[in-house]
């Protein structure tokens, strides 16, 4: 054993606002795992010269997940609850050379922000959205999310959730954007590869990341230890090849189907706009 004051850098330190660490997330919280995978993918793409990290911008709403914008060393806007997607949209319009990443929670993206998600996906607008799905409103203390499994208790449904649950990935897929995938923090290396795949693409890209909220969702579902919850999630998150999107499942008791469900290269919104409207003196990408 060596104890050292020597500056041994964590491999991602250049991509973190290290002065703000430790971050606010609870012990064992899955958000940090997802963020780690994302930062690795950016680091690799940057080092390979595929993207310029200076152009990468984080856009987050409000929530535990959304706090990520405060810990990463990129341009970042910590905006309003539910509004990360329109802010990212505007930024991309303002400077089409930016590489916007929306990184936010399930409540933020799929509940209050649902309409922005819907229309950004439908337009195939040129942003990457990473939705960390911990199946609850964590920051505010565990209220019902649209993603909370039916029957599970939340602080606003103390006798269990009476609502039909939302499969965000299936719904986004119905809008046919360029990239739709769902994975889990229990699949860290795959996650990294998927981020790497999606990030340099044009058009709308959606990645749902199943995550562990150890503090709140764990408590509501009776998992006391972060690892217990993680193991449970690992068990049900099954990667599958599917023939129709109808087949994917979002079922906390048995299976949450993971995989890349759409990966295509249709013209994006900005491709179309630039083609039809030719804004004077502007170009959109080289390709």
């Amino acid at each position, binding site marked *: 054993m060596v104890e050292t004051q020597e500056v041994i850098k964590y491999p991602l330190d250049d991509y973190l606002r290290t002065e703000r660490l430790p971050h*606010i997330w*609870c*012990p064992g919280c899955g958000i940090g795992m997802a963020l780690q995978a994302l930062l690795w993918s950016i680091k690799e793409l940057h080092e390979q010269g595929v993207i310029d990290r200076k152009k990468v911008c984080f856009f987050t709403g409000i929530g*535990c997940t959304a706090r990520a914008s405060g810990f990463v060393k990129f341009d970042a806007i910590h905006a309003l609850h539910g509004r990360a997607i329109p802010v990212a949209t505007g930024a991309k319009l303002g400077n089409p050379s930016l590489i916007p990443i929306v990184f936010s929670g399930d409540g933020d993206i799929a509940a209050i922000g649902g309409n922005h998600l819907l229309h950004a996906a439908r337009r195939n607008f040129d942003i990457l959205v990473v939705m960390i799905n911990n199946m609850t409103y*964590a*920051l505010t*203390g565990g209220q019902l999310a649209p993603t909370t499994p039916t029957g599970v208790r939340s602080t606003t449904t103390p006798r269990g959730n009476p609502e039909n649950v939302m499969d965000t990935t299936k719904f986004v897929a119905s809008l046919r954007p360029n990239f739709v995938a769902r994975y889990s923090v229990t699949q860290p290396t795959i996650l990294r590869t998927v981020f790497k795949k999606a990030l340099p693409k044009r058009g709308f890209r959606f990645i749902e990341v199943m995550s562990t909220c150890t*503090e*709140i969702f764990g408590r509501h579902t009776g998992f006391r230890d972060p690892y217990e919850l993680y193991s449970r999630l690992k068990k049900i998150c099954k990667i599958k090849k599917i023939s129709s999107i109808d087949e994917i499942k979002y079922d906390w008791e048995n299976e949450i189907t993971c995989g890349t469900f759409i990966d295509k290269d249709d013209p994006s919104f900005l491709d179309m706009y630039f083609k039809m409207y030719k804004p004077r003196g502007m170009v959109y990408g080289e390709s």
Partner: protein
Amino acid sequence: MEKARKYQIIIAGRGGQGILLAGHILGKTLVKKGYYVVHSETYSAETRGGDSRSDLIVTIGEEPDLIRIRKADIAVFMFDEQMERYAKWVKDDATVILDSTYIDKPTKNWSKIISIPFSKLAEEKVRNRRVANMVMLGSLSVITGLFEVGLLKEVVAESVKPEWRDVNLKAIDVGFEAAKEMGLG
């Protein structure tokens, strides 16, 4: 205006240490004793970490107007960051109680300082660091003499979920004993 008897109590620590619950239980106990109590909370958005603070104003015979304490007669600090932040809210001659698990030395030279390793005791004797707050309340009963430990246990028994009852009551005993052993009664 005649002044009634009045205690101003502050309990502060990090989020996750059960500061708010401690304040709530203490307030309920004192109300049961027949006092007027105003219990207010401050906390950060974070579920864990960040500040957490309970203010209690306890009066005997007259309804209080204040919500926040002006200067505490009794202060409990469960973590050093918060002690440093809130030291200015404590009277110089206050009774100051510190969780020595996380606090090495007091920020100020208060006249009466009592250090007890609440978190360590909770960890070691109850196998659950989260009930350090109850250990503290057990000790507080001894130190302040404001309420009986039996009444406290009654309130806890009716306030917390059944599955948590025993561990909490156990923690109270641990705190009570510790204070007694230190001869603080």
